[in-house]
Every structure is written in C-alpha cells, then in structure tokens.
C-alpha cells in the first residue's frame, strides 16, 4: 500500500528531517509511528499525503511512484486519503456538519447522500448530537472527533493521523485510539504518529520508531510474541 525506499528529506534551511527511511505498509495494516518530537514523524506523514516531496529516495503508493503523480492525480489520491491533525484544522465559520461534509462536497456527491453519510459518520465517532453545533463550542476531544469524522467520511483507503491525541487527557486519548482501531478493523490502512509511548505499547500494534530522521526500529508485537514463545 505504502512503501518508502531510502527516502530522505532535507529542508531548504539545511535541516535533515528524514534520512534513508525504508519501510513497507500492507493494505489493512495498523501502524504506529513514534519518536521524540522533531524526529520526523510529521514530515513522514506529509510525504505520504504528498504535501511535500522527498529530496531523496522513492515513495510508492499502491506500487505507483508518487513522484510521477500529475497535478490531476494528487487531488484524486487525496480523496482516497483521510487526514487527522493534532490541531484538528476545522473551519470555525461552519457547522460540524459542514466541516465533515467537506470531502464529500469536494467529491461532488448528491446532497441526500452527503446528509446520510455525514450523519452515520458522526454517530460512529460519538458526536451525533452535535451536528448543527459550531466547532468552536466543542471540547478538545469533541473537536478531534469532528476531525476524525471528516477524515473517514469518504471511507478512505488510507487514514493518516498526526498526533491525534496530543492535546487530550489519557482516557480521551484511549477512546480516540480505539476509534482508529475500529476503522482499521473495517479494512482501512491506518498510520498514526504519536509520542504517547504508554498508549502505543498498550495497543499492541506494529510500531515504527524514528530518531533524528532515521528509522531505528520496526516492532511487530505478533512476531515478538512468537519469538518469545519459541524461546520460552
């Protein structure tokens, strides 16, 4: 689904955000991306979302080289992508409904479908009663649910989340993470960047660890358990 091949990213300032990063994410996989702040988690997600281009190496989306994506391909690709941000990136001059409906409006769906799908998505993330509210009146956790609803409303193949629980307390964080696990169970490939190691460990999913732009570990709990079992 997503493959990084010796990817490097150096900014104009000369800062090397990513260096020689290679990994492979299978369709339907759930992967956490962790590391200290500034390790390159956000940069890596931005490269997957084609918000930025790597300065070295290749990124393959569905075996297609991302560099070859034309001006027309990028919007189409992004419509198959759900993006969740730490700061939610909601439009505060519009209602919750309008925020969540945005990807569907962009896709040009008929109004009746949009209504149905937005309502179903809001129910699924647990804020069906806030449909007509303005995002500014919602709590941080609720705003993040709106952000997640917007990301998944068009049933994307890939869901990318950058520190989705960064501003939330531990209980809320766990609820939000549980949402991502649920979406993963319905077949969505999910990549979540988080520095909340306690939570990441508890969820027992594959973890990519970045350190100063380098991938220093790719931990798969199942393999680990199997290895322990054989040894034990």
């Amino acid at each position, binding site marked *: 689904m997503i493959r990084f091949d010796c990817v490097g990213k150096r900014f104009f300032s000369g800062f090397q955000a990513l260096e*020689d990063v*290679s*990994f*492979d994410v299978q369709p339907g996989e759930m992967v956490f991306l*962790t*590391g*200290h702040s500034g390790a390159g988690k956000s940069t890596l997600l*931005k490269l997957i*979302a084609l*918000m*930025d281009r790597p300065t070295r190496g290749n990124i393959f989306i569905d075996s297609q080289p991302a560099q070859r994506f034309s*001006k027309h391909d990028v*919007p*189409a*690709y*992004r*419509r*198959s*992508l759900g*993006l969740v941000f730490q700061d939610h*990136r909601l*439009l505060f001059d519009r209602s919750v409904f309008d925020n969540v409906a*945005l*990807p569907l*409006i*962009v*896709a*040009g*769906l*008929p109004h009746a479908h949009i209504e*149905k*799908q937005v309502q*179903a*998505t809001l129910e*699924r993330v647990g804020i069906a009663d806030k449909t007509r509210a303005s995002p500014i009146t919602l709590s941080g956790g609720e705003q993040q649910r709106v952000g997640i609803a*917007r990301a*998944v409303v*068009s*049933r994307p193949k890939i869901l990318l989340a950058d520190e989705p629980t960064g501003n939330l307390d531990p209980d809320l964080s766990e609820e939000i993470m*549980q949402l991502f696990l*649920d979406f993963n*169970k*319905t077949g969505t490939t999910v990549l979540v960047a988080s520095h909340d*190691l306690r939570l*990441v*460990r*508890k969820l*027992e999913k594959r973890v990519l*660890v970045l*350190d100063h732009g*380098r*991938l*220093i*570990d*790719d*931990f798969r*709990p199942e393999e*680990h*358990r199997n290895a*322990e079992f054989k040894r034990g």
Partner: protein
Amino acid sequence: MILGPKNIAMRSSNVVKKIRPQPAAKQKLANQPTEKPPANGIAAVPFDKSPIRAWLRSHGYSLFSSIGRLWRQPFTQILTFGVLALALALPTMGHLALKNLHYLSAAAAQPGDVSLFLRPEIDLAGATALQNRIQTGALVKQVNLKTPDEALAEFKQLTSFTDALNALDANPLPFVLVVELSRETLQSGRAMKLVEDLRANPEVEIAQFDQEWLFRLKAILALAERAIWVFGALLALTVLLVIGNTIRLELAARADEIQIMKLVGADNAFVRRPFLYSGFWFGAIAAVLALALVSATVWLLTPGVGNLARSYGSEFQLQGLSLLESAILFICGTALGWIGALIAASAHMSAPENPQ
C-alpha cells in the same frame, strides 16, 4: 521488512525499550482482551459515476457559497461596490452624453445649401455651364442659378439699402449657384468633401456652407467618442484591478480553508471556483448599481433638458440607456469581475503549495 540500522538502534535504545514490552509487562498485555466486536460500519456510498453531474453540483455549491459569503458581510464590501459602480457608471454616462449630442446634431441637420459666388467675369453662359456640370453629381439634389439681377432684387427686398443700391450705376453682384445637398449627403460624412470639391472650381470665388458648424461639431463628437473609449478602457482596468485585489485579499484571508480543501482532495479548479463566482457577483452587482446611478442621473436631468429644448422650439428629449446598452453594461461588468477574480485566483494557485 525491517530496515532500521542496528547500530543506531543500539544508541537510542531507550526509545525502543519503551516500545518493546519488557518480559514482566508482557504477560499482562498478552492476557488483555484484544478483539472487540467490529463497530457498525458506515454503509459505503458510491461516489458519483457521472462527472458532469458532480461538476454541476460543485458549480452550484460555489455559486451559493459565494453569494452566501457576500450576503453575510455586505457592509464590509460597500466601499468596493461604490468604487466599482462609479467606475462603470462614468464611461456609461459619457457614452450617454455623446449619444444625445449625436441625436441632437442629426435632428439639426436640415437640407443644407451651399452658395457658390462666382467670379465677376463669369457670364450667364459660364454660370449655366457650371450649373449643368454640378447638377450631374450624384450627391447633389438640385442646383439653382441666381442671376445678379435676381440677387439685387432680393437684396433690395431684404435690406434698407435701397437708396444706396440705386446710387450704383452697375450691378456689383456676381452670379450665384445655390447647390442643395441631399439629406443622405448631409448625414454621411461626404458633405465636407463635396463642399471642398465645389470650392475648387475655377469659376467659384467663394463657397459658403451654412451648416459647416454642424460638421465641426461632428468632428468634435468623433474625437470625444474616441476619448470616451480610452477613458472607458482605463476605468475597465480599474474595475479589473479593484476586483482582483478584493479577491486576492479574500484568498489570503481564507488561506487555511483553501489548504484544508486541498488536503481533502479538492483540485485547483474546485478551490478557485467560489472565488470566480465572487468576482462574478461583484461585477454583476456593481453593474446593476451603475445602471441605477445612470438611470437616476437621466431622470434628474430630463425635466431641465426638456425645458431648454422647448425654449428653442424643439421636441428633443434626453435619451436614456436602451435595453441593449443596459445588457452590454451588465455583461461587461460581470465579465470584468470574473476575469479579475480569475487573474487573482490563478496567481494564488500557481504559487507553490506550502503547507506550514
């Protein structure tokens, strides 16, 4: 596929240690209930298969979202609308003034006569020959010959110089040819050329054309018309720049929204469209305001012009904008708005996408 360089993994193994469960913690985690029953999936709604319908829908969305935005903040834009309406109204008024002057000058163009005073040495035979020669010209309606005797009699009748004229021993007046021009000749631009041709005849001493002032006026009007075009073009440019700048400010104010739109998969055309419609509305509303301004001006001036015309015994009435002219003003306004917005939006879109 694991590709983490192991030597670095050693160095920063504290992060890794936190991720890799320690043997004590492992047992607890393994016993946790890991699988929850799958949440209710959202019924997948198929994306619209018809690109044309999707395109139309997105146009509808842009149309209404842009007018909604204008509607929500009408007073912040009032200055802009004022400038735009004036910029559209001024050349329109200039055009209207010219149109009325043209109309007036056409009404004033009576069948005009050219009086050709022949040289004193020309006799009746010479005068008749010239008369016949001019008569054959297509632009001329009729040529009358006035002998010196007829002219003298007329002169005596019209003036009180009878005694003085009687004192003369010979008639000092020359033969006169009165050339009556056809109305078509007068209305077309050929009259002045014809007068020049008549004047060039060797027999003619003086050629007098009583409507010469009218042709000067027409020449001035033609010049004024050209000036109005230049003036109008400059003001059209103003409209373009004002709308372009307004849209540019709007684009800058909504940069976050634009970025979010792009992140959820909107292409440039989709992002640009509401702004183009904004430009369209700016132009359309400004054109309607300009129409109102011009109509109000005409309405205010009509009684005064009517009174003045009547004092000259004329039935002249101030001409307002015709339906066609109003339509042209409206189309120009909206087109300028659209183009101004297109320039601003395209400049914004071609700037590199720079997400934070």
